[in-house]
């Protein structure tokens, strides 16, 4: 057996322990203060820690077992870890948003809507970043100016969606969101003029 393979579960296990230390600290704070926010952080970090510990155990099991059984078991553990991580990140996101908006009275019931917007903006930003990188890779191969412009356009649109996260804290950042979107779309117009040159 390759001894270096054991490094994966070791790091995973250590990550789990670290997350649980944070969870215990949050639990202690909750017991002292009774503030629900600490309970939320306790649950979130406990889930992160538990998922890492479970994964480390499964990794040891897969390293020690045959490849035939290792692949499905590993796939299952990865799925489980992703789900637990998603739940924990949603809890963290909820409290982050709740704190951001609780200074505005009568807006706490809107937190679920803000959560959905945040999630969608994050997905939008990632999709646009992926599109930008894909076109950039094509540009590196072909050196077509229009592809570079489109890549930059996608990137600016992605930045526009990322600005949403800054706007949650600082309302004035709305100008960033609008500017990035406007500049991104201008680049698409520039791209159109570039393609017209080709047509001529």
């Amino acid at each position, binding site marked *: 057996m390759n001894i270096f393979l054991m490094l994966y579960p070791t790091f995973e296990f250590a990550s789990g322990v670290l997350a649980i230390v944070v969870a215990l600290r949050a639990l202690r704070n909750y017991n002292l203060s009774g*503030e629900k926010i*600490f309970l939320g952080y306790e649950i979130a970090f406990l889930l992160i820690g538990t998922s890492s510990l479970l994964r480390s155990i499964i990794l040891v099991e897969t390293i020690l077992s045959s490849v035939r059984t290792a692949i499905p078991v590993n796939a299952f553990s990865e799925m489980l870890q992703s789900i637990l991580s998603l739940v924990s990140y949603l809890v963290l996101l909820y409290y*982050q948003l709740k*704190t951001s908006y609780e*200074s505005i*009275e009568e807006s706490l019931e809107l937190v679920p809507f803000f959560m959905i917007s945040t999630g969608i903006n994050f997905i939008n930003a990632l999709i646009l970043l992926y599109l930008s990188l894909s076109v950039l890779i094509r540009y590196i191969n072909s050196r077509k100016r229009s592809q570079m412009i489109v890549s930059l356009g996608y990137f600016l649109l992605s930045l526009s969606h990322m600005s949403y996260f800054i706007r949650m*804290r600082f309302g004035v950042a709305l100008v960033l969101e609008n500017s990035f979107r406007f500049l991104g779309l201008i680049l698409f117009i520039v791209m159109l003029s570039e393609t017209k040159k080709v047509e001529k």
Partner: protein
Amino acid sequence: MSFKKYRSNLSIIVDILNAIKEEGRIGKSRIMQKANLSYDRLEPRIGELLRRGLIEEVVDENKILYQLTEKGYTFLNEYQKMKAFLDAFGLEI
């Protein structure tokens, strides 16, 4: 939608404890003044602090005053750590 920032229960409790800590021994009206609280909001919290053993009642010249207990001082120290914990995550109590 108004933009009035409100204090959490924990912040109010800490404001009360700090008011008591600053004066050593203090009456209700002075606490109300220092912690910027109405009587209705102060009264249940004084009861809560007494129940949790964070403050104690002392009678001085027929006046009821409040002072921090050892547990109260420890709680104020712990609050700084809690605040730092949330601060690290970009949150406020």
